[in-house]
């Protein structure tokens, strides 16, 4: 019996989990799960379109979580890397995890398991970077606004951090690359998509949308950033290693360097 099949899902995480469910249901030993925006049909393989089903997705989620809570995190993070071909790898990982009681998804001597852990680690690092590198600018209508352009789609991962921290101010974090963002209205966080004519980057050009005070605080921050540097210990390589250049244009303290 041929047990390879292409499963086409809608690109959402729940869609992916539904596809995993279907794969298990049909006892596929290899499931070539593909996102519909990238799908490529094999010459001889069968294809099935998956319709996202929350209940099926939940059963997979809970099943994996019962086995190992760190594995479910690795799966979600690695999924968000959106790397080509990640879905069949994750299917393999879940198969192994569910295959035996002892398996906790920590078999680091398995290349695929190691790969998924490394990818999850990369996405985790990007999440952490965004928690660090978001720079809010205060608009005239009292909303703290920030643009980001992360390597991976980390918006779903950072929502909780910012909601817990900035509970008493309205804020927007907007992913320019993926054209969507988070808006906290002092009560809940909602997903938004904006029609931005000019991206409000921290450039030297001032925008009318922000208060004058905003630019004075940016100026103070830049001054602080420069005074706290010890010139006799200069180490530019280490500096760019920690603050890679691709993030500079959104950091007010680096705006002159861009």
């Amino acid at each position, binding site marked *: 019996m041929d047990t390879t099949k292409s499963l086409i899902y809608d690109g959402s995480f729940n869609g992916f989990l539904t596809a995993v469910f279907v794969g298990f249901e049909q006892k596929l030993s290899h499931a070539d799960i593909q996102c519909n925006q990238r799908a490529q049909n094999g010459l001889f393989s069968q294809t099935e379109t998956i319709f996202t089903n929350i209940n099926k997705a939940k059963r997979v989620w809970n099943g994996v979580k019962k086995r190992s809570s760190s594995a479910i995190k690795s799966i979600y993070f690695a999924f968000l890397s959106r790397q080509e071909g990640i879905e069949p790898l994750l299917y393999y990982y879940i198969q192994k995890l569910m295959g035996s009681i002892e398996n906790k998804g920590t078999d680091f001597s398995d290349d695929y398991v190691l790969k998924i852990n490394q990818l999850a680690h990369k996405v985790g690092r990007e999440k952490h970077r965004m928690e660090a590198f978001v720079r809010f600018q205060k608009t005239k209508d009292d909303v703290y606004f920030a643009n980001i352009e992360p390597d991976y789609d980390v918006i779903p991962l950072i929502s909780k951090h910012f909601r817990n921290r900035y509970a008493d101010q309205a804020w927007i974090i907007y992913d320019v690359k993926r054209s969507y963002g988070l808006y906290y209205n002092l009560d809940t966080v909602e997903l938004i998509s904006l029609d931005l004519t000019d991206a409000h980057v921290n450039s030297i050009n001032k925008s009318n949308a922000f208060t004058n005070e905003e630019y004075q605080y940016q100026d103070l921050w830049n001054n602080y950033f420069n005074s706290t540097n*010890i010139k006799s210990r200069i180490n530019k390589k280490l500096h760019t290693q*920690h603050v890679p250049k691709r993030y500079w244009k959104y950091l007010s303290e680096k705006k002159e360097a861009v």
Partner: protein
Amino acid sequence: MNFERIKEKLNILADAAKYDVSCSSSGSNRKNKDKGLGNASNGICHTYTEDGRCVSLLKILLTNHCIFDCAYCVTRKSNDIKRAAFKIQEVVDLTINFYRRNYIEGLFLSSGIFKNPDYTMERLIAVAKKLREEENFNGYIHLKSIPGASDELMYEAGLYADRLSVNIEIPTISGLKLLAPDKKHEDFAKPMLKVRNEIIRHKNEKKLIKSTPKYAPAGQSTQMIVGATGESDKDVMYSATYFYKKFNMKRVYYSGYVPVMKDARLPSIGTQVPMLRENRLYQTDWLLRFYGFSVNEILNDHHPNLDIDVDPKLSWALRNLHHFPVDINTADKRMLARIPGIGMRSVHKIMNGRKYRKLNWEHLKNMGVALNRAKYFIVCNSRYWERRDLDSERIKGMILQNSTGKFRNQYSNQLSLFS
């Protein structure tokens, strides 16, 4: 708010505070209270200065006026520099506004000592109290314990701060006498001891009464200057160990002395900052705290100073070749952690991975083990391993030959042949 005046003060008082190397904002567990501002938990470095150090807190002095005359300090009384002082409200406004823009994790407030220790400590506490009680600020606050401050004030400081620290600065008592004649060793120890006892007391009470307030949840830290008084690495690490044990320190920081003024007792201006030595001391510190080494294994009367050309773990292994080779597939965690080139992350991966199958070189390489160092000290599931009976000098030579190091140009003796 007069931004120009604030800017001027900020430049002076941030410049004076930057020699304090502590930047940690982790280890606390303060939650956002009543939909207020901020929380403090894992610590985030929001940016890095061009010297490669992390910026996570707004690190400033309340004032750089000081009644003391410590030779190593920029703000000492006899140094002719611009002096400034913040008002309490100014520090509060700066902290809140920087925090709201996600620039910082919180405030690190230190101060020169004006009038007397208690008066200074009171002002520091006033800033923290205002932030916590009037602004409902739940971010990280690190306060300096002023040497000689009273027990009552130290108690109060811990109620608002996440971390308290006193900088011992000079690792030896004789050095302290030479460079800071106004300060007494007991003045440093007193606030540390009070804070340690309060932390223990609050932890015990918390077990019985849930509503016990937090007291300095991120503990205490201290800092030592290295390279100012000719102390040995052994002196530095033995006093660090003393502080870890006696005062339950969360961290001891080592700060390579940056020559900032002329003084016959100190290295002259232009002397290079001992950054490599600093690095080796931190490596040793990590070995003591996370790798299960005890200090006398690494530094003792026979080896009072750390090797400059190799890291302290490799140096220990070369002196103790009788423990090696270690079998990756059977060794216990303690021994795995002692292999050069294997860090705690790799130890974790090896411990997990070997449950499923026997590990070979390929596995180790993929896990991120630095085989160029580790290969001389291990055997694994492979017919190939280092069979030659090499002595430590040869191993060291081969490792140095097959690797590069960022500090290599500082100690390389390759060129000395023709110079």
